[in-house]
Each structure stands twice: as C-alpha cells, then as structure tokens.
C-alpha cells in the first residue's frame, strides 16, 4: 500500500510501527471504530472515577467513614482497571486487524460487570440492613 506522509494522515510513523508491529493496514473505518470504542471505555472509566469521588464526598450522612472509603476505593480501582485495560484492548484489536487474526475477547467487559455488580450489591445490602 502506498506510503503517505504524516501530514496526509496515511501511512505509519515510527511510534506506530514500534507499537503496532507488522501486518497490513485495515480499512480506515475499522481503525476509527476501534478508536471510538476506546473512547467509550475511557468515558466509562471517568464515570466510575466521578462515582468514587461522589461516594467519598457526598455520602457522609448515609455511610460511616470506613464503608464510604471502601466503596470509593472499589470504584476508583475499577476505574483504574477499565482505563488501563482500554488501552491494551485498543492495541490488541488494532494488531489483530493488521494480522487478520480473530479479534481478542474484551476481558474488561466482565471486569466491569463483576466490579459494578459487586459495588451495587454492597450498597444495596448496606441500605437494606442499616438501622433507620
């Protein structure tokens, strides 16, 4: 495939070559779709971050300090995993497209589901059993 200059937006830079390795360029729409999916995961991570801050800052009347800290930490750790995992998901999908390999399974999806479910369950149980 013709190698375009960096200004034209096509072709590879040194960084792209080093990070993505060999293979052939996929349809540009697939690359852009992969980028959009990455940004969706990033926004999810930011929402979890904001949730962790909100629990720690706004729920002093609802939870004691230890409970508040635990729930906030769970949300922040989940945000960390999703944020970091989204980059590796993007990279693995980009490499698979270039090598025409099957797309990898997104492990951050079950992490988000299990982590989010755990936090919701903890808060639901606490709200149900705490004395009024």
């Amino acid at each position, binding site marked *: 495939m013709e190698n375009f200059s960096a200004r034209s937006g096509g072709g590879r830079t040194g960084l792209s070559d080093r990070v993505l390795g060999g293979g052939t360029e996929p349809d540009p729409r697939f690359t852009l779709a992969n980028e959009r999916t990455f940004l969706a995961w990033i926004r999810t991570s930011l929402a979890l971050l904001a949730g962790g801050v909100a629990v720690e*800052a706004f729920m002093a009347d609802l939870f004691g300090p230890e409970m508040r800290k635990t729930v*906030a930490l769970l949300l*922040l750790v989940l945000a960390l995993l999703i*944020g970091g995992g989204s980059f590796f998901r993007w990279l693995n999908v980009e490499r698979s497209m270039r090598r025409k390999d099957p797309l990898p399974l997104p492990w951050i999806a079950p992490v988000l589901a299990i982590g989010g479910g755990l936090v919701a369950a903890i808060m639901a149980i606490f709200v149900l059993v705490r004395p009024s």
Partner: protein
Amino acid sequence: MAWGRTTLSLTVAAAIFLRWMPHHGWFSATLVATSAVTALAINLTRKRRFHRAITGIKHEAIRPDVASIAYVAASVVVLACLGIFTVLLIPVEQ
C-alpha cells in the same frame, strides 16, 4: 464527536473533583488540573484529528493515533491513582 464527548466527560470529572477540595485540601487540585489539561489538549488537537481522519478515509489508509490514545489512557490511569492515593493517605480536613 467521540473525542468531543470525552472532552465533556473530562470537564465534568474536573468539576466533580473540585468537590473534594474542602475535604482533602489542595492536593485534590492535582486531579482537577490533570482532567482540565487533558480536556484542553484534546480540544486543541481537534482540528488536526479531523483532517487526519478525512484524509485517511479519502486515501483509504489511516495512521492510528497512538500518541493521543496513549496520552488519554495514561491520564485516566494517573487520575485513578491520584484518587486512590487521596482516599487512602490524605486525611479529611475537618
């Protein structure tokens, strides 16, 4: 639009991080600054990114924006680490 929504999310996150300042003092300003700087950087490079995408689709070959992707991911990881550090080690100011 995806980058625009991400900029908006970072801006909202920066505003929420401000809520921590009465509790955890000026250290929480690092979260506000990191979010705001990342949102600003995405906004300032918006035109370059648009032209890159248009040119790439026209020529049927696009260079993945590895640097931008890595920067945004690193920013979110740093924000999460700063948040965890704040909750664990920065005492709540009375």
